[in-house]
């Protein structure tokens, strides 16, 4: 399954590269409106065409990549940074008050999809990329917490943990020294999956206006703008959509490839 990993890495890498390059160069400056050239289909001068303000779509996609990747990445960071310690703590105190508390907290957050959290935050604090990061990040926390807890619980029953307890190591120390290294692979794979989900979530939030606000470009908002014009200028909707699909696809393929590469469990295939 190296194929998955390589293909995924290439796809993802392309968009990460585009995002990074956009800091120093884009084919056109999108701040400058160019109305006479509006709604051009893809041609030699504008590879992806122009939008209703004459802005170059390719440049907007590169800049939009920045937004999507940044938001999704930071949201994964929040999810891991809070979720993994919570999961480790819950597993270390399995069956006791802390564990129950963390599990109930997880269940509670699961009742609030990212969109709903975003609605809540935006209504009271205003829309913006930061709020999108927080909303998606909050939803990531129980995902990682639950996964970490499950994996850690499986390990706590093993004899090598017992051996560490016999020599008097504390739960915290055991969690870091013994449990964490053994669940790292699982976390990496889940990280790429949550990253891809984050890209989709960010696109959805921007589409309804709850994400990054103008003038920061974002793929979701490009799609919202394209909606009314889709019958006369389908390229407006096509390219941002494809960008989302390919980035997410790339990340998912990478996740699958990583899973197979890092944990090649030789399954005994039954008759």
């Amino acid at each position, binding site marked *: 399954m190296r194929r998955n990993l390589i293909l995924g890495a290439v796809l993802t890498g392309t968009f990460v590269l585009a995002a990074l390059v956009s800091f120093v160069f884009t084919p056109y400056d999108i701040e400058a409106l160019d109305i006479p050239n509006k709604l051009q289909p893809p041609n030699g001068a504008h590879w992806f065409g122009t939008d209703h303000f004459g802005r170059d779509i390719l440049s907007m996609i590169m800049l939009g990549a920045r937004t999507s990747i940044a938001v999704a990445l930071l949201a994964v960071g929040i999810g891991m940074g809070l979720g993994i310690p919570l999961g480790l703590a819950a597993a270390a105190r399995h069956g006791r008050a802390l564990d129950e508390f963390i599990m*109930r907290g997880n*269940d*509670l957050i*699961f*009742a*609030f*999809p*990212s*969109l*709903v959290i975003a*609605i*809540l*935050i*935006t*209504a*009271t*604090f205003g*829309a913006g990329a930061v709020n999108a990061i927080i909303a998606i990040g909050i939803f990531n926390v129980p995902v990682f917490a639950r996964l970490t807890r499950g994996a850690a619980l499986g390990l706590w029953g093993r004899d090598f943990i017992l051996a560490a307890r016999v020599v008097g190591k504390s739960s915290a120390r055991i969690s870091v020294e013994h449990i964490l290294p053994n669940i790292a692979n699982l976390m990496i794979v889940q990280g790429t999956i949550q990253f*891809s989900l984050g890209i*989709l979530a960010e*696109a*959805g939030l921007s*589409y*309804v*206006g*709850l994400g990054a606000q103008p003038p920061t470009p974002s793929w*979701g908002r490009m*799609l*919202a703008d*394209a*909606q009314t014009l*889709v*019958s006369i200028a*389908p390229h407006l*909707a096509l390219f*941002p*959509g494809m960008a*989302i*699909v*390919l980035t*997410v*696809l790339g990340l*998912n*393929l990478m996740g699958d490839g990583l899973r197979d590469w890092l944990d090649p469990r030789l*399954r*005994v295939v*039954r*008759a």
Partner: protein
Amino acid sequence: MVRYALKRALSLVISLIVASAVIFLVVEVAPGDPASFMLGLNAQPDTLAALRAELGLDVPRLQRYFLWVGGMVQGDFGISYAYRSPVAQMIAERMWVSLPLALYALGLSTAIAFPAGIYAASRRGTLGDTVVMGATQLGVAVPNFWFAMICVLIFAINLRWFSAGGFPGWEKGFWGGVKALTLPAIALALPQGAILARVMRSSLLDMLGEDFIRTARAKGLSRRQTLWRHALRNAMIPVLTIIGLQFSFLLAGAIIIEQVFFLPGLGRLVFQSISARDLIVVESVVMLLVFSVIVVNFAVDLAYAVVDPRLRART
């Protein structure tokens, strides 16, 4: 079984209470003074005072919370500031679009996913499996609102099988309403169905590696019989979890997709209310959304007990 159901019901009530507290805190406590937030910086003091009185803000917070919850339980969600009409009525009208859409999509998603997942698992490693996996890999990567736009382009504008948007209302006929919701439901169902198909497949494959499957084969059951009679029911347990989780995503997705099809659902209501800073509406809609998710998950918990006898006997 009764014990289990009661325990779950208790859990449901607690979740609702805590969720309502969280929503209340974020909406009414966090911005400081909701009244000045809603009216903006240039508000006159007497307008502010009037609004405060109307919103009941002079009452201590804890009491306000109980008044709010008490009101909701009785069906009174307050008066919308922006529209000046009872929130309960506005929500009810729109719920009749969003909720059926989410359920319709859930049904479609399940209808696509189960056969696909079972087929892929039973034909593991063959071309059929690879094709299904490839399709789901693509389906998972597609944003549902973009897919909706493409669907509109193909099916509504070019082929003219469906209208490009709008909702005639249930009073004009059940099937008319269903037709209007079909394209949106398909757009919603596809990505979620892809996820569900993958979960179904992997859950089934996990089951097929279990010892009791080997026992079944030793009894003389064919591979096919083993899959249907033994693996499937056990594989349903993790699948049910995902379905419960999916409902919350579908509800959220329904709200987003309403924008593509101009459906008069909760989506438009809540986004307009956010712009209008109508906290009362936002509060109520969010509460309702969370309530639906918690109730659906409760139903899923009960379904677990039906499928898995180990849960019935225990505490």
